[in-house]
């Protein structure tokens, strides 16, 4: 049995009267890539805020490698790297200074931290930009710096919240490629939140989140097969990005009709 990197169990969260998450459960096994698909407003960012302890979990539980985030936050957060949806780099500092700051936030300094910064920037293909101000980087480059930053303390679980939003195709491809290599070669567990279907491969495990609820779970192929396109929609071959997109539209439309 594969160890669970992230276990979210029956988590609910509300902002006043507005329910953002309703009994959400999902598991990311160690060393696996899992995608969280959902339209804007589905609750993905709220789920990420709970999984990173920016918000307290009031109903349900979040465990990272078996450690409850509410009871043992330090140990749980030490195993977690995160790339937030909005940019979180300090634009006026250099790439090296940004990474050194993050290393310090995890208690790392000195030669070990310096070597790790150089190594990670080489890994994401930005070794030559190490002393450039973040302000001078393109959106895709800044995202890759954020991925390097998220890995600086050697986490075993990486959360990425719509990491490719607003990027061109080439930049998106480069980021997806880096993350998938980390999963394959480094045994890193990844929860990849997105609403861009071509970032998901047909054998990937996916969860579909809509209006705060998980409405489908399985491999992308099985989810696409189990939820045919809505009546009137153009038929697409099962297993393709288009089939998943059609299934997703069918699912979210039905959920809307049922609401």
């Amino acid at each position, binding site marked *: 049995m594969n160890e669970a990197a992230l276990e979210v169990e029956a988590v609910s969260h509300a902002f006043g009267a507005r329910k953002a998450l309703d009994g959400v459960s999902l598991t990311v096994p160690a060393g696996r890539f899992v995608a969280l698909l959902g339209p804007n407003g589905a609750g993905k960012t709220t789920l990420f805020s709970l999984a990173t302890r920016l918000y*307290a979990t009031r109903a349900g539980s979040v465990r990272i490698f078996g450690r409850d985030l509410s009871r043992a936050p330090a140990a749980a957060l030490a195993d977690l790297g995160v790339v937030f949806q909005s940019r979180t780099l300090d634009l006026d500092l250099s790439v090296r200074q940004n990474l050194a700051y993050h290393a310090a936030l995890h208690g790392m300094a000195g030669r070990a931290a310096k070597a790790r910064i150089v190594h990670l920037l080489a890994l994401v293909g930005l070794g030559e930009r190490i002393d450039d101000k973040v302000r001078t980087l393109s959106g895709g480059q800044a995202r890759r710096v954020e991925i390097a930053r998220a890995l600086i303390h050697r986490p075993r679980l990486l959360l990425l919240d719509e990491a490719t939003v607003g990027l061109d195709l080439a930049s998106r491809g480069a980021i997806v490629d880096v993350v998938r290599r980390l999963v394959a070669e480094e045994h890193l567990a990844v929860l990849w939140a997105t609403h861009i279907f071509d970032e998901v491969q047909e054998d990937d495990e996916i969860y579909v989140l809509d209006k705060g609820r998980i409405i489908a779970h399985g491999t992308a192929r099985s989810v696409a097969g189990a939820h045919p396109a809505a009546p009137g929609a153009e038929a697409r071959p099962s297993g393709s990005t288009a089939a998943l997109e059609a299934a997703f539209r069918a699912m979210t439309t039905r959920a809307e009709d049922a609401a």
Partner: protein
Amino acid sequence: MTDSALAPLRAPARHLGPGGYMVCLSGIVGRELLRFVQQKERFLSALVRPLVWLFIFAAGFRSVLGVSIIPPYETYVLYEVYVTPGLAVMIQLFNGMQSSLSMVYDREVGSMRVLLTSPFPRWFLLLSKLVAGVAVSLAQVYVFLAIARLWEVDIPPMGYLSALPAFVLTGLMLGAIGLVISSAIRQLENFASVMNFVIFPMFFASSALYPLWRIRDASETLYIVCLINPFTHAVELVRNALYGVFEPQAFAVVLATTLVFFALAVVAYDPGRGIMGRRGGPKGEAS
């Protein structure tokens, strides 16, 4: 990607012992100092403000406002000498508010989230932010005192040293107040009005510009307001410390205010008890 290229990723990293705390603290302080050094206009404006008060306001009032002999002064002093401690603490007041402004900014652009996902306890992260703010304010204060010395504000040489702990404590107090304010501000735009409601009342309703006895002569009510105002005690703590005198009442009030506001800030930034989890999703994010 070769296997050896990824090898350094594999070793586990755990740096959460006492040494890790020091590294974290120095990282947060270092970042704040780096940002400060790069924002030259911030440094200049922090200096210009008290210097305008000293060179123009105090010089103009020198002949109008006499200051009788009150502790810690052993003789009549120039008005410039009297207002200098208040202006030094005013630098810290502005700096404390500026730090909280940067907290609001960090929260809006998202880098606050990076700080708060550190595995170190949240109270320690907030304390480190406070210490970082104090480090920045000390640099500003001592440059101001050096310039003031050229303007006939003669402080005993040992006073610069004996006032250092007082400046650290007053910086912590004003930073803690700023932290609490930053936790209550949802958007950067709302901060300007808070500055007007906090900075100016705190500064003017204190002993920074006039001795308390003179304020009491003018208005008993204003005198009570000044006594309640922790900024008054911060100014008096620094004023006495600059002349090598320890003022226990001022120390007690400043220390207590620091502890109360820091505790409030820890609660406010606690994901379980504070405002963070009760608000909507982070600004600018989809869900």
